[in-house]
């Protein structure tokens, strides 16, 4: 059942900037079990897109994988030649880029763009491609009659569906979706997530879903990987990470989020401060400067991944005290800046 299908180990991805380089992803490890949806969550700049792009090896010009492995069905994606990697793209690993709905080419019809993938990448004949286009549109719930439309004739939500159709064109085993619903309003967002989950179940594919929104994770993911400043702060089943957050950052996120099911009088509590600069990260735990529970060791020693429950890890020196910290984290006063 929970056979591991993708295994990322100590992944390090850097960007060349000026004369030096910046380690945007610094020792990230996580697994994707076959047939599951894994949510990669964290705030802006924490390295989610960098991880997603490293997995597809479609990276920025100044980016390079500086360490680690990405074992996919027995092959290390970090070590594959560009040619072998290219053979995997679309057919085995498909990528839906961040703001995919704006990345469709405005001068070609949607059908033309689907055809490019089906015929050039997939080697399908004209008739087969035509049939597949219709199948794909049906799958994502757009009238087949609109295949000949141009991207600007679609709403944002429909363009996002087209992007999903494009990703599914050649029956990949793994789909990496970078913020697929972020710019959409709540109704469209929900409908796209339902669609994605239905297709994932129907086709038995695995999905890595990049998002900054923990409620998206709560709605659709089986597992959660919480990133903070280029590191993994916490990971485990969706249920465990949400109901028993064991890293102070995840505990804080929980209080910062308005919950329509919660009491009306609830007060939202921000996490004061901002993530550190990756160009010059602080030693020790990267969350320490914002953490209400930091102790001396946090400022100097990078915390290891502690297994708080089987399969549930938190990179925190105080992970052993998680239940007590969770209790304290509920109180607003815990998160108030001292000064």
């Amino acid at each position: 059942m929970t056979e591991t299908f993708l295994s990322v180990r100590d992944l390090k991805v850097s960007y060349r900037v000026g004369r030096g380089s910046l380690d945007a992803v610094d020792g990230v490890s996580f697994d994707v079990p076959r047939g599951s949806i894994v949510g990669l969550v964290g705030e802006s700049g924490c390295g989610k897109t960098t991880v997603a792009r490293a997995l597809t090896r479609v990276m920025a010009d100044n980016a390079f994988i500086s360490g680690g492995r990405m074992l996919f069905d027995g092959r290390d994606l970090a070590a594959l030649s560009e040619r072998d990697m290219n053979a995997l793209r679309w057919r085995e690993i498909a990528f839906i880029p961040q703001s995919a709905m704006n990345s469709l080419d405005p001068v070609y019809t949607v059908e033309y763009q689907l055809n490019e993938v089906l015929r050039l990448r997939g080697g399908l004949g004209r008739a087969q491609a035509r049939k597949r286009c219709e199948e794909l549109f049906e799958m994502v719930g757009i009238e087949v009659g609109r295949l000949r439309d141009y991207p600007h004739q679609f709403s944002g939500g429909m363009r996002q569906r087209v992007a999903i159709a494009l990703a599914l064109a050649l029956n990949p085993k793994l789909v990496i979706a970078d913020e697929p619903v972020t710019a959409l309003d709540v109704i469209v967002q929900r409908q796209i997530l339902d669609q994605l989950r239905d297709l994932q179940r129907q086709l038995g594919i695995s999905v890595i879903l990049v998002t900054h929104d923990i409620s998206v994770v709560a709605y659709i993911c089986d597992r959660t990987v919480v990133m903070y400043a280029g590191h993994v702060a916490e990971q485990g089943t969706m249920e465990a990470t949400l109901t028993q957050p064991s890293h102070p950052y995840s505990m804080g996120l929980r209080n910062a989020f308005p919950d329509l099911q919660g009491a009306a009088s609830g007060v939202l509590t921000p996490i004061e401060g901002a993530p550190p600069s990756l160009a010059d990260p602080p030693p020790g735990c990267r969350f320490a400067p914002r953490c209400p529970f930091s102790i001396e060791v946090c400022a100097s020693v990078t915390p290891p991944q502690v297994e708080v429950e089987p399969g549930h890890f938190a990179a925190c020196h105080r992970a052993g005290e998680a239940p007590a910290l969770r209790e304290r984290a509920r109180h607003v006063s815990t998160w108030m800046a001292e000064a």
Partner: protein
Amino acid sequence: MRPPATDTGEPLFSIREARLHYRVGGALSALRGRSSVVKAVDGVSFAIARGESIGLLGESGCGKTSMGRLLLKLEKPTGGEILFDGEDVSRLKGKALRRYRARTQLIFQNPFDAVNPRFTIRAILAEPLENAGVPRAGHEARIVDALELVRLPQPAQYLDRYPHQLSGGQLQRVVMARALILQPEFVVADEPVSMLDVSVRAGVLNVFRDVRDRLGLTAIYISHDLALVRYVCERTIVMYLGKVMEDGPTEDIVHEPLHPYSKALVAAVPVPNPHQSHDPLPIGRGAPDPRNPPSGCVFRDRCPHAFDRCASEVPALRDAGTRQVACHLF
């Protein structure tokens, strides 16, 4: 919770049958038989009491921003009237108009779009003071006060920085400070936190609530997310295709939405809870073409309850207990 509004009886705004119709496309779309008018705001009426905060809720394109722009007189209504303090806004000119501009302000969605990247924070905040003719000598103190008001700690350290040298949350506070620096009575906040990370969003929302209460501001808060609206507004107006579907206390709408569209909006709000309903939303897929809204009730082609009358008769906004609803079921 917030103190009671300082209600003198007379509303700050009275909006009567306001319309904002945009002409879109050219002769070509007219030839194709497509009506070339988008009714961004179409016969909207409500009053805004002094000190009240109202959430404008609805999906993309329903006319929230257009309504906000009408209130701020950034757009001229194509029909109906908007009274501010009893005076018709469209008649304001000269000095009265300048005064109106100072008393009403807009807080933008994306803080990075809202400011000139080549201006320092000091210059960004001095601009409205200059426009309002505040003497130079008084600028620095007003600027620092405004930044303290939005709880930017040690404001002096930011004055000579440029926007890109601030975080999103810090810059959104600067944008808020700029809107507040002339001490307006009324603000429209158009999705002010949608571009911010969750961890900083809460801080900005708290500042917004706090400043509003302290200054007794009247506010319109625009969003498509009821969870955010609920956090700042005791009253919510649900819009769909330029029309008001439901208007009432936010808590009532959260717990028992009446209009079929409000029901879908409430059900769609994402919650950070592993145990939640995955039932399909009670709404048809795909927003209609705003140039060709359905006859009768504009929501009927997506409504799970639509019946004959919905196609032939436009439902009026009628009283239903604590609220008003525009639906033939009520």
